[in-house]
């Protein structure tokens, strides 16, 4: 469960202070699949980073599964994130020079799965699951965009996180891959019972989510269940 309480985030440019995010209260329950939409600069990516603990809010609290991550030290937050969350980015953000399998194994290793064979088994199984069984030993720089994002999904889910945070993961993909990747992600999230927070600009994808959060310059503009398409 994600609880956000009176969170604001600002940054300074010269003497000017710019507020990029303001959320008085938001609760995302276990297993929910939330799409976050809004114009550029509305704070969507910042919201993801604050939930992940990659950056701390200027004010307010973020509580994940009962733990206020603002009170954790940086190392503790690193460990907490590694164990509880999976992150997927628009630009894939895989580590070049490493194979698909190694990218997934790295996340497994840092998430605290001690047993090597367990890590290998989990990584291999997920790469099979996303259809990369014959590409797992290829350097990620040689994979197609669709394949890279599937590696990113496997990496985000290898340690069975309770929360998956995805920052526009389908934005760089063609329509076919977009559908494939989203379907795979949703299927896996459902399968694992994880909570999904999915930032997107693409309104055609919203019907796949249980809840849509719209951000605007003043904060949350709307919070509703999507209207099914067609």
């Amino acid at each position, binding site marked *: 469960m994600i609880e956000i309480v009176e969170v604001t985030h600002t*940054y300074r440019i010269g003497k000017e202070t710019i507020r990029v995010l303001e959320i008085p209260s938001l609760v995302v329950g276990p297993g929910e699949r939330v799409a976050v939409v809004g114009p*550029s600069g509305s704070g969507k*990516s*910042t919201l993801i*980073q604050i939930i*992940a603990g*990659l*950056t701390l809010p200027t004010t307010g609290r973020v509580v994940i599964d009962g733990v206020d991550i603002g009170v954790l030290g*940086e*190392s503790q937050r*690193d*460990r907490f*994130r*590694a*164990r509880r969350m999976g*992150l997927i*980015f628009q630009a894939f*953000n895989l*580590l*070049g*020079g*490493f194979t698909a*399998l*190694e990218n997934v*194994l*790295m*996340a497994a*290793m*840092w*998430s605290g799965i001690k047993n*090597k064979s367990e890590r*290998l088994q989990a990584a291999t199984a997920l790469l099979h699951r996303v259809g990369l069984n014959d590409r797992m030993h290829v350097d990620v720089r040689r994979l197609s965009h669709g394949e890279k994002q599937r590696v990113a999904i496997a*990496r985000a889910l290898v340690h069975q996180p309770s929360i998956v945070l995805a920052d526009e993961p389908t934005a760089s993909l063609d329509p076919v891959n977009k559908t494939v990747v989203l379907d795979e992600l949703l299927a896996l999230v459902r399968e694992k019972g994880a909570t999904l927070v999915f930032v997107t600009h693409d309104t055609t994808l919203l019907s796949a989510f249980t809840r849509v959060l719209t951000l605007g310059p003043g904060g949350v503009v709307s919070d509703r269940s999507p209207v099914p398409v067609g």
Partner: protein
Amino acid sequence: MALSLWVMAWRQIRSRPVVTGTTIMIIAVSVALMLSISMASEGIKRGISESSAPYGMVVGSKGSETQLIFNTIFLLDRPLGNVPLDFYEAVKADPRVQAVVPFALGDNYRGYRIVGTDERFFAMRAYPGAPPAFVISQGQRFAHPFEAVLGAKAAQDTGLRIGDTFVSSHGTDHHEGLEIDEHREMPYTVVGIMRPTHTPADRGIFVHYESYWRLHEHESAVEHDATRAATSDQAADTSHMLSGSDSGDLSHGITAFLVHPKGYVELMQLYQEINASPHAQAVLPGQVLGKIFEQIGFGAEVLGAIAWLVLALAAITVCLTLYQSIEVKRKDFYLMRAIGASRLHVFFVVALEAVWLFFLGELFGWALSYVVYAFLAYGIGERLSIAMPFFFDAGAAWKLALLLIGGLVVAVMTALLTYRTQLDSALRVEAS
């Protein structure tokens, strides 16, 4: 699959081959420079020591002791004046002397020094009980004047074979086409070729010293006649100038001779007595070589200091390269943090990258130093016939270890810069 931090660091540096290759090359060249300087210095010392091993005390006319050693042992430089024959005979007859080996120098054949000596030359040994230092491989030793035994290198370079004849030229340097210097009436016949010794003797042509006497008796007679016929003949002056020698009248003298006393006490007595006499000086090659080594050592120290400076610059370059790569890879490090790597993990990956770079740079540099040494040894062997032996430079081990520690310091400094990088600053680049 072991995806250790070592492997991660290795993959990181492998993913930027140009920067990695250049950095490793800079370290390798600096290391090779540093190691090859000290190795060459040591190699030359060993080569010179081995070359001078068969020579005991060298006696020659008064003058530069270094010149005497260089001329007699290394067949370099110009001869000093002659030692009077009666002085040589007196030393030879001294009861404290076990053996003497005469040397007459001053002529050459195509630049290869002609060394007048006698059969005792072939009995010289590096140390008592050692095999003879100079051994015939083809033909035989000279038995009569105008029979010549060639050093291995001299034979190879001149192409002379057993039975061939050649005429010597006056002086220590070869002057192409100047027939006036040649002793055409009295040619030498090659009777033997020596086994390679990898010492300057390989470049020598050894003849009986009486050959010198006869040549120069003949020359004196001819010059006497010529001077009477035309005192203004310019060729005579040219001949004298080009001889480049202070050898003076060789008709009945010896340029230098080696003395093997019966014991240490006798050696010291003779050393003092000869040096006190007005006719000659006695030189112990070890002492002179010690002075030369000091000069070499000083030169090597200066070059070594420069090499360390170059190495320090290389370390700074590595530091900058790594720092720059951190800027480039900031996103990767952010990503590693985002998927669970701790600051410490990233710190170690960056530090190990530097360790890899230094380790490989040192390894290649160490190998390269032997390649440089081989080239130097070849060059010096070809030019001076001083064999620089291949050896394991134990001193290199601590230098490399010291350098690796320096590399670790660079690694830690660079990694600390990454460690101090806040995720927030990376996020400002990343967030949009």
